[in-house]
């Protein structure tokens, strides 16, 4: 309830519905006499001080009549909803207890009726029963039923499959009893939610019928009937029609907002507030930029609101032609690092860098259009899921060609030719035909080739491949890895290869950067990976790899414990809690990344 009142919409809906209920209760006793008082001296008047909404053809005050009519409008809507809910719930619950054939018949009927407008059914019953509230209530009630039926059916189907229903059936509990004792109680809540919305639409539909002169007949009157009477006079005195119109509109809005808010309150899951303190990132002195490097990152930190920092103080240098592997478990921040380099960190994440240089240019100092062009042509990105990386609605060739038309000002034909040429380059057979196809006509491996070809449309200096083979099967993986190696060799571009698979990294890369909980813990040449790793985490990763000599009778090696979430990382080494070598110092003091032999850096107090 408190949640309901927290949003302005929920609050407004609650107030409007409450007001309506109050008017329905106190309206007739307070204004009842005035609403019926016939006064021949003031017939058919417009708005005045004495009669804010004017008077009708018998001189009765319309404002008083609006206040009184609320009760009938609401009661009829309640009755209509009740009919709809009862008929619908029974219809909907039947298939879960009926034999198969009967169930199909009921389901089919409900499906056919569910999209049938209520007003048409109401007109049908109006013809049969004659004009009056009875026909409207019956017709609209029956029209509401299918939506209740469908909801009940969906819910009941999920409950009917539950073990306790099967158990009740096995025990020979009669069908009706299974329904009333076991099925219905478990689906009551969403049904009640639906009631609120149904009540609103019933009220509006009834008002519509009365407005057409087909619903409530005199001497009774509801809001729709007042509208019917007022509408004929709208040219002389609009207030006469607008008064009841506003009443109907407010009621409709009230029920709708309340229903929306109820639905949202029911769907909301409470998320724990993250209040970890912002980490103190020790800023290191930054050395002179390396003019040779393709990519130079210093002190990269990604922060999310609440002080969550999935990447902290990361530094990385990639030389031309080099393939650098960035390894770590999921959640270690490796993909976010890739996004940050590409400037793709989603809102509300914030990226701060001590330095971010691509191809010798400082990205923070470039003008916006220069940065776009540099990133668009010199940086190629390949993502994990080739099924999702290509736009399903556009032709493959067009998605490649647009890089050239946008960034290089190429003509459409030139761009298309280049696209076909690039597809050929990544060994896609019949590239001209494939270019005209949509992504769903291509296999997963072929799509990943297309994404790589897209990166080759410009003049890539750096390819960031974020788990490019994870979603592919093993033989296709090999082909994509081979292609990446070939592309790197041919273009002289560097590759930052991100993976959780240390075996693949060991095979493809020249150098390996190991990340743990948002930091680089070790950086080493690939030939030292197996024998020379210094950080306990890297060693554990390597040890967890099965090889030909692994004893198959033993369980595969794994690292006990789990990586801390970004909000949980404390002051010391994040790996300390899982580390066999950990000392007191490890959990209180952060080990810096320091040189450890040639081309090798490690962040560990115990790596001596």
């Amino acid at each position: 309830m408190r949640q309901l009142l927290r949003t302005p919409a929920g609050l407004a809906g609650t107030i409007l519905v409450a007001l309506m209920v109050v008017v329905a209760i106190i309206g007739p006793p307070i204004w009842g006499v005035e609403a019926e008082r016939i006064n021949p001296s003031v017939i058919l008047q417009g708005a005045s001080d004495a009669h804010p909404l004017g008077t009708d053809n018998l001189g009765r005050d319309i404002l008083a009549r609006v206040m009184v009519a609320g009760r009938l409008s609401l009661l009829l809507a309640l009755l209509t909803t009740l009919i709809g809910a009862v008929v619908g719930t029974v219809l909907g619950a039947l298939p879960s207890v009926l034999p198969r054939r009967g169930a199909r018949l009921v389901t089919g009927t409900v499906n056919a009726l569910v999209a049938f407008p209520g007003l048409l059914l109401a007109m049908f019953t109006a013809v049969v029963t004659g004009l009056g509230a009875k026909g409207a209530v019956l017709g609209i009630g029956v029209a509401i039923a299918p939506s209740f039926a469908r909801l009940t059916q969906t819910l009941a189907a999920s409950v009917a499959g539950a073990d306790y229903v099967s158990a009740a059936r096995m025990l020979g509990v009669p069908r009706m009893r299974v329904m009333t004792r076991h099925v219905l109680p478990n689906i009551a809540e969403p049904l009640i939610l639906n009631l609120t919305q149904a009540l609103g639409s019933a009220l509006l539909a009834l008002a519509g019928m009365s407005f057409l002169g087909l619903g409530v007949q005199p001497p009774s009157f509801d809001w729709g009937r007042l509208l019917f009477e007022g509408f004929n006079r709208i040219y002389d005195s609009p207030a006469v029609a607008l008064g009841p119109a506003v009443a109907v509109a407010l009621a409709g809005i009230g029920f709708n907002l309340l229903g929306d808010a109820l639905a949202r309150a029911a769907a909301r899951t409470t998320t724990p507030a993250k209040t970890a303190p912002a980490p103190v990132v020790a800023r290191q002195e930054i050395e002179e930029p390396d003019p040779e490097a393709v990519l130079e990152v210093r002190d990269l930190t990604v922060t999310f609101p609440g002080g969550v920092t999935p990447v902290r103080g990361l530094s990385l240098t990639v030389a031309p032609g080099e393939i650098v592997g960035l390894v770590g478990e999921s959640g270690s921040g490796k993909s976010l690092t890739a996004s940050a380099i590409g400037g793709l960190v989603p809102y509300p994440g914030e990226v701060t860098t001590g330095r971010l240089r691509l191809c010798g240019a400082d990205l923070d100092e470039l003008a916006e259009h220069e940065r776009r062009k540099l990133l668009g042509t010199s940086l190629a990105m390949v993502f994990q899921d080739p099924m999702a990386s290509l736009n399903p609605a556009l032709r493959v060739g067009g998605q490649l060609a647009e890089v050239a038309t946008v960034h290089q000002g190429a003509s459409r034909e030139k761009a298309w030719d280049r696209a076909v040429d690039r597809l050929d380059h990544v060994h896609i057979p019949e590239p001209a035909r494939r270019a005209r196809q949509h992504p769903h006509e291509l296999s997963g491996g072929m799509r990943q080739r297309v994404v790589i070809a897209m990166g080759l449309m410009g003049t890539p200096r750096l390819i960031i491949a974020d788990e490019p083979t994870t979603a592919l099967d093993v033989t296709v993986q090999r082909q994509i890895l081979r292609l990446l190696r070939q592309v790197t060799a041919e273009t002289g571009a560097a590759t930052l290869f991100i993976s959780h698979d240390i075996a693949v990294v060991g095979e493809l890369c020249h150098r390996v950067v190991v990340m743990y909980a948002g930091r680089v813990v070790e950086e080493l040449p690939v030939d030292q990976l197996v024998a020379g790793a210094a950080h306990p985490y890297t060693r554990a990763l390597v040890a967890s790899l099965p090889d030909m000599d692994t004893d198959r009778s033993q369980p595969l090696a794994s690292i006990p414990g789990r990586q801390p979430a970004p909000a949980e990382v404390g002051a010391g080494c994040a790996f300390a809690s899982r580390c066999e070598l950990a000392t007191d110092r490890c959990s209180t003091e952060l080990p810096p990344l320091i040189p450890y032999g040639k081309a090798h850096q490690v962040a560990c107090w115990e790596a001596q």
Partner: protein
Amino acid sequence: MAGIPRLQGRRLLAGGVSLARARSAFLLRHLVRFVISLAVLLVASFAMIHLIPGDPVRASLGQAAPIELIEARRAALGLDQPILTQLGTYVRNVLSGDFGTSFLSGEPVGDVISARLPNTLALALLATVVALLIAVPLGMWAGVRTENGRNRGTEATFTSATGTAIAVPEFLYAIVLVAVFAIGLGWFPPAGKGAPATYVLPILSLAIAPAAMIARISRVETLRELGSDYVRLARAKRLPAARIYIRHVLPNTLTATLTIGGLLLTGLIAGSVLVEYVFAWPGLGLRIVESITQKDYPVAQGVILVYGAIVLVVNLLVDVLLGVLDPTSAVKET
């Protein structure tokens, strides 16, 4: 309708035969369902007259009508025949386009329908187009602005504004628009059908609520597509924002949006009855209200039959279209 199942469906499609078979089974199932529904509708509209308590002829002619006239009318309507014979005659007549004759004006109901149906359809279709033209850009704009939960203010405003707009029924829009723009400001004619200006208010009254609904769908769809990998890749390619939204995102949001638009069309057809009444629009809706009030049963029967058939046709088209656009829904559905 999530992205991944859709793609899996497409993969199935590439797989070939099984899907083709599933698809023709799907089409057949929907056709059968359509024909059955149509038959039920036909019987229901026939039964309508017979469900009326007492004698419909007497009810329509009044208690004072001479007995000879009543007998003559009964014979003319075939009400003196056995009920199954009557049903047979009715079905045969309807299928050959004979919907009977109006009690009041004596004109064939078929003529009434063919004269008025185009006006109703024009109103409903134009309103759908207008609703889509307003809603899709609005929803996309809201989606882009509120991506990843930024601009909470915009989101709150958008949600409550559309929620309010959805909650107000079309006849109230019609009344307010008439009061303000026709009577108050005098910009548009208050009623009738003629010059293009007479179309403006009826179409607007019909279009506002569906537009709000479609705008919501469009925003949700846009948000979903913005979170997809292909948008990430398009952003990595550093395409201009307008190109990403219009060329990459828009086509992918249209499937769901158009489907909902189609479903709303049936609601629009019912809503048009009320709007026609407000604007004295010479469509089927105005006529059915008159015929029910005046107990002109053959007209009411014929018009309800036509309305029902339109609803069934629209639903069939939407289902089939959805099945073609989104193969998984066709395969999964039982």
